[in-house]
């Protein structure tokens, strides 16, 4: 039982991190109808920027405090993401208005290649570490109930809390602010939004920037967990079934989907994996999402798909 709980918690925490990456996908898809494959590359880019800036900043400004350096690096990396969002809107999206979904998807794949090259070209392609003071020690819960207790990584708990907080802030931003309302309007109908005076281009910059920030947060958390390296981009591929399961347009869907996928992956790896030779978590999430789609083509919380001739 303790083992099961451990796996369950591990899955939930991993799921929270998946949903963090998935959030970036959902935000962009909602606001611009672009299925942003570059989210993974953005995570890598942001994490690289954060890691290298926090290394460089003490040298540039002569600061000793690691905390201050981290804050400055965060701001700088955020600025990078803003410049990136602006450039993408200016150079790519603006010219691809009204194209088919698959063309836009391909364009974001092009952006992925570009960002991979750019990020590693500027910031280097070694493995870097991000140290934002996340605790590394495991803690044991429920000692009294099970022998040895249930081991949980405190780092994971922090990460999950940060993810939850981010989700809360984002949903507040979407529900309560004027910009958030404008974003939702654009998501509903581009033309109608434009006709009541919402500037589409600015909205796109904002939404790519917000997605960039979630990529940054995800990059920091993943980066401090497993080091900043090229394999971070695969995190995005792991997050894809999450959004399919949760629905492409739903923020809560990204969270719930993430949790389901995280738990499913972990439990299947632990209980089914040994029977078929292990390593099944790579495809298990996809197959889970696929089976799910057969029953609910729009995902858990997606908008119902209505076909009209």
């Amino acid at each position, binding site marked *: 039982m303790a083992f099961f709980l451990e796996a369950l918690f591990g899955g939930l925490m991993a799921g929270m991190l998946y949903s963090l990456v998935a959030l970036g996908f959902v935000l962009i898809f909602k606001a611009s109808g672009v*299925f942003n494959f570059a989210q993974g590359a953005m995570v890598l880019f942001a994490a690289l920027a954060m890691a290298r800036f926090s290394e460089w900043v003490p040298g540039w400004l002569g600061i000793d405090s690691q905390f201050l350096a981290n804050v400055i690096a965060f701001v700088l990396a955020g600025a990078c993401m803003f410049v990136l969002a602006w450039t993408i809107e200016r*150079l*790519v999206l603006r*010219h*691809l208005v009204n*194209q*088919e*979904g*698959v*063309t836009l*998807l*391909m*364009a974001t*794949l*092009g*952006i*992925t*290649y*570009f*960002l*991979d*090259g*750019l990020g*590693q*070209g500027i910031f280097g*392609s070694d493995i870097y570490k991000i140290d934002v003071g996340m605790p590394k020690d495991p803690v044991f819960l429920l000692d009294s109930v099970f022998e040895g207790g249930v081991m949980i990584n405190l780092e994971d708990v922090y990460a999950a809390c940060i993810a939850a907080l981010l989700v809360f802030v984002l949903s507040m931003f979407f529900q309560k602010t004027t910009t958030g309302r404008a974003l939702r309007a654009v998501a509903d109908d581009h033309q109608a939004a434009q006709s009541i005076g919402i500037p589409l281009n600015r909205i796109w910059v904002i939404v790519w920037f917000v997605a960039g920030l979630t990529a940054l947060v995800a990059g920091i958390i993943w980066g401090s967990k497993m080091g900043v390296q090229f394999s971070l981009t695969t995190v995005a*591929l792991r997050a*894809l*079934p999450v*959004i*399919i399961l949760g629905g*492409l347009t739903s923020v809560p869907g990204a969270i719930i989907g993430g949790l389901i996928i995280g738990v499913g992956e972990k439990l299947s790896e632990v209980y089914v994996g040994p029977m*078929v*030779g*292990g*390593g*099944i978590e*790579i*495809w298990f999430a*996809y*197959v889970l*999402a*696929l089976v799910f*789609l*057969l029953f609910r*083509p*729009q*995902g858990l919380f997606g908008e119902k*798909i209505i*076909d*009209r*001739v």
Partner: protein
Amino acid sequence: MFYRENGQFKTSYRADQQIFPIAQDRWVILALIAFAFIGIPAMVDEYMYRAILIPFLILSLAALGVNILVGYCGQISLGSGAFMAVGAYMAYNTYIRIEGVPLILALLSGGFFATLVGIFFGIPSLRVKGLYLAVATLAAQFFCDWAFLRISWFTNNNASGSVSVSNLSVMGLPVGTPVEKYLFCLSFLVVFGLLAKNLVRSAIGREWMAIRDMDVAAAVIGIRPVYAKLSAFAVSSFIVGVAGALWGFIHLGSWEPAAFSIDRSFQLLFMVIIGGMGSIMGSFFGAAFIVVLPIFLNQFLPVFGEVFGIGISTATVSHVESMVFGALIVWFLIVEPHGLAKLWSIAKQKLRLWPFPH
């Protein structure tokens, strides 16, 4: 002046419906095929075969298959790499497990098994569409990657996990030197190209296109979506599977699942989009573009760096290469979202009037 159909009268339906109704087209294509079979072997060196021509031929065959699914039937697939893998591994298993099986039969059996897998993973297309389907087909990709890596039966219990074939021959003729490999792939491509061209202009091809343009409307006028979609998956994955078998047997010789990773799927989709969706010609253009571009960049960038007096390291070259590749793709999508095939048809239109526009 030269490219005009004036005076070419058709007196029968048969003549009117041939693949290339304009005589000039017919001659150019025939000349091109003759050149590919006779001219090229007399001209190029071994590097050219290995690095450009053979990959180009095989990948254009794969792109042709993907184009049938994506361009003609409108079902976006990110799992083409997996179908290539199925083709390669099942062809391998047929080849080594059945004593004395001819090479061509082994390759075709790879295509056959890819068809089965393709139909299986095409079933979700009956329920989900567009981008959801694209992600769903990724399931095929990851599952096949895993299966060929972990299930040792597929690799004939080979400890290293990679498989290899050697001493290939077709009907007594060896397929070993680059020239022989080139001619072998070229023959496959010509046959399948003709087959695909005829399929897409037949009744089934029109059904696919109707489904692509609007599946609900197509269903209303009496096209069976199940049949149309699954047949597109079947034909497409057959061709892709054969291409995968060729890629493994002829191009690589020995391979492991990484040769058919998700990057391969993206690459094939790029070929289709850049070449032109829903165009047989486009598949060839796209494949040529994607095969040649990285080689060109790889050769060109260091030279370019020297001109400006910057020594470019190998790592930087690969980064800049990926940047330029990405940027070019985006640029291409912006200037010509309908692909190179569209440019080709525009050029043909212009050529009809040239040089006397009135």
